[in-house]
């Protein structure tokens, strides 16, 4: 390839990337600083990370200048299969770190295939959904799309890396964008709400909430909307009044009142608008089954440490020295930063190892403590800018594959940022996934660099060939 039209490169994405990587290294330097040790010393994390950064830059330029973009459509499936195999292999021959078996050890270097599997999955999704024949109305296509996501989730769960598996749910956003029924997202959200309510309250409360939601939907679809709304408001007020009295018997009464009400509403609708009524009824039945199975899932499927993390997050369990230690210390570090922070290299909490994993999963603590509210919101703003920029740029793509791949890239970054930052400030359970571009670690930095720069390359090629 001779002569590159540099102006056509996505410089906004590249500069946001560079800002994040450099800022990340600064914070790694601060959090793992060792007195009197050279910046280039490989015994330190900041020294090592310099190597990761330079190799990541090499990879980026390699992708931009040496690898033709056509190759990706043809290697998507083989790559996907390769990483699927690696994911299986790592579960057996991998090195166990912090309770999950997700690393390959090659001498001093460690590789986490789950990081790269996001890339191959994104590529395959782009190829699959980008195919002219693909449609979410065809069951065969839906089945394929589901399988692409579920397979890596399954393998990663085998490695006991539940956190990484969650990231793959982000691809549902891409599916939604590409025409998947929005109800699936809504039902997913509902399922999460019911899950939390079941754990914090009780299955009975969850069923009440479910009945309430069904009831509201029934009202929205009925013809005599106002009448139903009035009845509904009355019921809700009565319920609110009753629930103030903390007596299990009264709560049971409330449930026995609302459930028939919801059923009746749905039945009435079923007579007039058969389809919606039936759907609501089915929704109700499925919801009840879900709530009933949550207790089972929670006690049988989830592992002890995951249960503990979720309980701490939901406030069921208060344990600042045990499971809650990480979050507690992380909150202290971020909270003590105040508006403008303690200043670069001046954080006491991150400097003195109070926060575990501070240069990898908890790097945001260093940002929060040393740069304060201003700094942490600034970092979030850069991420938001990058994500929205990628989405906007993808939306403009003429090529379907490039567009879908762009959305996949954005969704991966989005999920990582939300889960990681949410974890450090106690909005999410402790899920050990890195903050893209900022966290220490070769696998993560390389994977995200590849992910981003493949998109930049695809975007560039299409601009050139237009």
């Amino acid at each position, binding site marked *: 390839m001779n002569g590159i039209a540099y102006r056509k490169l996505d410089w906004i994405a590249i500069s946001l990337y560079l800002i994040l990587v450099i800022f990340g290294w600064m914070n790694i330097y601060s959090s793992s600083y060792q007195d009197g040790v050279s910046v280039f010393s490989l015994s330190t994390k900041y020294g090592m990370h310099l190597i990761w950064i330079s190799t990541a830059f090499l990879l980026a330029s390699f992708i931009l200048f040496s690898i033709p973009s056509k190759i990706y459509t043809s290697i998507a499936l083989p790559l996907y299969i390769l990483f699927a195999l690696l994911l299986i292999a790592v579960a057996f021959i991998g090195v166990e770190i912090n309770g999950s078996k997700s690393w390959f050890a090659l001498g001093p270097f460690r590789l986490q295939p789950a990081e790269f599997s996001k890339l191959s999955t994104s590529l395959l999704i782009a190829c699959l959904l980008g195919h002219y024949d693909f449609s979410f109305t065809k069951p065969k296509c839906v089945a394929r799309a589901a399988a692409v996501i579920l397979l890596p989730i399954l393998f990663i769960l085998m490695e006991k890396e539940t956190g990484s598996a969650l990231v793959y749910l982000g691809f549902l*956003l891409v599916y939604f964008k590409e025409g998947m029924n929005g109800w699936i997202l809504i039902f997913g959200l509902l399922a999460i709400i019911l899950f939390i309510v079941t754990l914090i309250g009780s299955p009975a409360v969850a069923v009440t909430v479910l009945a309430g939601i069904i009831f509201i939907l029934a009202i929205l679809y009925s013809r005599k909307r106002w009448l139903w709304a009035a009845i509904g408001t009355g019921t809700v007020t009565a319920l609110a009044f009753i629930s103030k009295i903390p007596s299990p018997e009264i709560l049971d009464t409330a449930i026995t009142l609302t459930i028939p009400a919801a059923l009746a509403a749905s039945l009435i609708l079923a007579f007039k608008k058969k389809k919606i009524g039936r759907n609501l009824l089915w929704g109700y039945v499925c919801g009840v089954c879900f709530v009933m199975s949550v207790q089972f899932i929670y006690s049988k499927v989830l592992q002890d440490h995951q249960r503990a993390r979720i309980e701490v997050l939901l406030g069921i369990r208060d344990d600042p020295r045990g499971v809650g230690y990480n979050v507690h210390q992380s909150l202290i570090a971020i909270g003590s930063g*105040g508006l403008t922070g303690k200043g670069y290299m001046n954080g006491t909490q991150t400097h003195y190892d109070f926060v575990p994993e501070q240069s990898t999963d908890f790097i945001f603590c260093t940002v929060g403590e040393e740069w304060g509210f201003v700094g942490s919101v600034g970092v979030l703003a850069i991420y938001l800018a990058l994500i929205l920029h990628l989405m906007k740029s993808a939306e403009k793509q003429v090529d379907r594959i490039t567009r879908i791949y762009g959305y996949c890239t954005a969704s991966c970054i989005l999920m990582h940022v939300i889960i990681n930052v949410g974890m450090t400030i106690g909005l999410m359970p402790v899920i050990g996934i890195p903050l893209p571009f900022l966290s220490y670690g070769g696998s993560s930095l390389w994977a995200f660099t590849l992910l981003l720069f493949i998109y930049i390359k695809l975007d560039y090629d299409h601009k050139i060939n237009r």
Partner: protein
Amino acid sequence: MATFNERHTVLTIAIVLVFLVITAKLFSVQIINKEYRITAENNALKYETRYPARGVILDRNGKLIVSNSTTYDIMVTPANVSPFDTVALCRIFGMDTASVKERFAEYRRFRKKIGFQSLVFKKQVPNEQYNIFCEQEYLFPGFSVITRSKRIYPINAGGNLLGYISEVDADFLKKNPEYKSGDYVGKTGIERAYEPLLRGEKGYNIYLRDAHNRIKERFHDGEYDKVAIQGTDLTTTIDADVQAYGEQLMAGKVGSIVAIEPSSGDILAMVSSPGINVDMLADINNHYKEIVSDPYKPMFNRAVMSPQPPGSVFKLVNGLIGLQEGVLVPQTLYPCHRGFSVGNLHVGCHSHSSPLNLYESIMTSCNAYFCYVFRSILDNPKYESVQEGFEKWKQYTESFGFGLKLGSDIPSEQPGTMPTVERYDKLHGKGRWKSLSIISLSIGQGEIGCTPLHIANFAATIANRGYYYIPHLQKDTEATPIDRKFKERHYTMVDTSYFEEVIKGMAMAVTGGTGRVAQIPGIEVCGKTGTAQNPHGDDHSVFICFAPRENPKIAVVAYVENGGFGATYAAPIASLVVEKYLRREISPDRKYLEDRMLGANLMNKVKIKK
């Protein structure tokens, strides 16, 4: 395509909303909630206590009686210990390997509870061991040294008086939150009474530390550190030489000596025998069991805690009351034919001339004379009943401090006992008792209990001709002025002039009466013997005196349990204390007396109460 664009907008809005939620949470954590900042400080700052040196204790002449020396506690932080050479460590501290291993097994068992705390590994390590350890400290990561100060006693005197310090216990901490675990506090005696003065003020160094409790550096280069303020030195009223001498004299005897400077109320010496050796005091923890199980109760400060009948020395009180009440003049003559007899009642007496006046009765310690005096006080026609007369008599005795806490600065001081109307009503029936029923009070027997401090205070009162200062142990100095209450004169209800009459009798008692053994050539001693009857064994030997007669410098009581007659032990001992204090040494012609007292051992006569 249109619907897809719509979904792009939906997704954009949803993502922005999620970021807003995160920002809101960040705002609440970083800006609104201040709690995290405080927790961060507690997390990262370590306050290391700097212990002040406890104030030293001096005697009235500036002689050091309690001072400090440095000891070293070896601390261990089990969480920071890495495998080390157990044998080498044991060799340094002379411990056996098995016990150390057992200790570490225990640390392991309680590791969750211990966390990153430092525990005392060995207390009060001697200097040599400390030096060796310092050289090899790098071999034993997790071990460290804390410097503490320990009490030392240059003179073997005043064990009971000084009291001991020991580490605070959980009960004490609950009541005194200003103390922290590991602090030492005065538990008895002067150490306890003057704890606030002696303890000083703790300081601290602030260090930054990391999550593993490793000290990183000084916080702001020590700018916010607090220097420990040394405890105030305390000058006592004790004369260390006299105190030590008194203890030597009382060795082998049970009882006490109290010497007071009448003109100030200063306690010059206070001996309780058997007492606590100062060597034990310094290492009280290792001797505590031994002290507590000692049947002679060395911890018990008899001088202020043991009320006993004062015996004949109390005749002086009755004489003074009689004079003040006008029922007696010095020239009043009463007969005595080997005692006092009314009906069936007989109070025996030894043989002496009869009849005799007040001076002679004091000189010979006549029992009969004071029975007459006591009867005339109680049966005085100006009172309607014996009970009323008794109440008046009791008021007089209380004005001397009997039956009351004098209010000294000795924490364990007891009030003693004086009988009450109610008590006799119970004993004999209401109003059915007469002066004869309680006649033993006339000679200091019966239902009367005075501590040696009471009796010494009485001696000082006579020496002052009618008033006393509350006896105290703290010397009034410019740096540490004493409480105002110690500077107030407490007058008795007896006029000053009557005291001269009693003093004349006391002088005669020493020159030619029962207390002749107390004579010191060149010093006019006034004294009174007492033989307190003891139904459980030999009588107690009691003697009070003061000297010189004019402008007295010292008033002394000696109370020797099971010592027999007052003149046998108490009088020689008290007079030797007087001589020691006034002359600093014993004259050659009284050496024989000193030797006899030093050599006497009455321990076999003492019945041990179990």
